[in-house]
């Protein structure tokens, strides 16, 4: 997206349009398991983004010829509700949504022990109920929680966060206005235990140095998001007995490595 003229100030005296400082995350609220039918689900509010993620699987794959003999077939769908955007969005998936579906899959798949479920299918559905910049990172973050909630064995959570450049400064976690009028956006996802980067995109213009600074900052953001993810899971499962899912997870990991 082309950026507007620089005259409009997105940062005044170190404060951004929504009151944050340049290295601040927006408020993030994660709810585990809001949906009953799905095998796992999560709801995230990230600033004004409101997003649901649901997981179905392991289950049979339709159509069957998609099934893989040596591992689970993993699919993701990133979809925006028609009322989630400023102008109403047509319900059919746009090219942008189809690309983000792929990028989301690629961000999540390295953490999933797909080899434990040959021939099965695992589906992640992300529905953007309200968008305000950074939906792909918020969606990946929520989907990762929904996968845990579904008891899918994983090597690690996946935590995502963007950094970007506005008014000449590298800042954390762009909101919609900052994304549209800023200079660059760098969404990142990591598997926090190994630090492996599973999502990395960039658009805008950054010098080599600026890019490195933005990447460093986004990785910091991912770590903060990871803490919030763990907190939400602990809160959700603390009254319950030690969730079976965790055991499965470590077991799965051994088998896979």
């Amino acid at each position, binding site marked *: 997206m082309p950026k507007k003229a620089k005259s409009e100030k997105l940062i005044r005296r170190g404060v951004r349009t929504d009151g944050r400082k340049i290295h601040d995350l927006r408020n993030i609220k994660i709810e585990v398991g809001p949906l009953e039918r799905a095998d796992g689900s999560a709801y995230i509010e990230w600033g004004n983004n409101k997003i649901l993620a649901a997981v179905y699987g392991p289950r049979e794959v339709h159509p069957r010829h998609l099934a893989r003999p040596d591992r689970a077939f993993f699919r993701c769908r990133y979809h925006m*509700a028609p009322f989630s955007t400023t102008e109403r969005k047509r319900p059919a998936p746009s090219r942008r949504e189809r690309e983000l579906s792929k990028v989301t899959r690629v961000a999540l798949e390295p953490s999933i022990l797909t080899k434990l479920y040959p021939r099965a299918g695992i589906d992640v559905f992300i529905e953007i*109920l309200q968008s305000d910049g950074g939906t792909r990172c918020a969606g990946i973050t929520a989907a990762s929680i929904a996968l845990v909630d579904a008891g899918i064995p994983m090597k690690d959570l996946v935590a995502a966060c963007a950094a970007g450049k506005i008014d000449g400064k590298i800042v954390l976690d762009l909101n919609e206005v900052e994304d549209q009028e800023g200079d660059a956006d760098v969404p990142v996802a990591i598997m926090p235990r190994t630090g492996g980067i599973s999502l990395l995109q960039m658009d805008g213009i950054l010098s080599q140095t600026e890019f490195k600074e933005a990447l460093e900052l986004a990785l910091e953001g991912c770590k903060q998001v990871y803490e919030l993810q763990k907190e939400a899971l602990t809160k959700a499962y603390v009254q319950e007995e030690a969730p079976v899912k965790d055991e499965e997870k470590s077991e799965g990991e051994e088998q896979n490595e």
Partner: protein
Amino acid sequence: MSDSYKIVAKITKKQIADNLLKNTRIDGRGLLDYREITTEIGLLEKASGSALVSIGKTKVLAGVKVEMGEPYPDKPDAGVLTVNVELTPLASPSFEPGPPSEDAIELARVVDRGIRESKAVDLNKLCIVPGKKVFVVFVDLNVLNHSGNLFDTSALASILALMNAKTREYTVSKGGQLKYKKSTTHLPIQNFPVEVTVAKIGEKMVVDVSLEEEAVIDAQLTIAVGKDNEICAIQKSLIGTFSQDEVHQALQIATDKAKEIREKVLRGVEGWLEGKE
């Protein structure tokens, strides 16, 4: 919406039928009891109006967007209303991504008829420049969790989202130029239709069928009832039949339940309606 067959293995037809003989239901409700209805209104800031309605575990989110558009050639003085349903794949293992299924289309059209025929929105007040510019009201329904009774849940979410919706006030110059004012105003709502689906299981009539019960229903009637107890829309679905008497019974049940639901819901949301009149 018959994706309940897997569950039937666990809770047998027989169990459900036995309960009904005793005039109770497997979840303990009476035949004419709804599960708990909760409503959350105005939860989305970007939509013109929104409502999340849960009946039991079933959850439907309605978002309303009001945009500028052109009228239909045969109704140059009227705004446009469209209802669209997305049976999101989050809501049930049997909902698949893709263009709307026959079920989604039927659901959208039944909800649409309830609103349209009851004249819930005064479309004539949504005309800006006759024949050229009118407000287009999009009601988009996102089914988030399907545990039965999508008709009633979706219809309720729709009317509440419409009641919640606000548009910018405007003036039109002589040249036909539109100028928005800062103030907003509610949509011209003039009725509050409630859809009640009455199902027939064997000889019994029940309301608010749960997903488990869906597998054993013979037939159902969805009846939209307006604020003065008028009937605005009916849709029979499923492949069973009703006798004329049963239709009359269903009508009575629907009228009673619609009134009850309308009052309960309005009581719960007094706050957000206050500034309205």
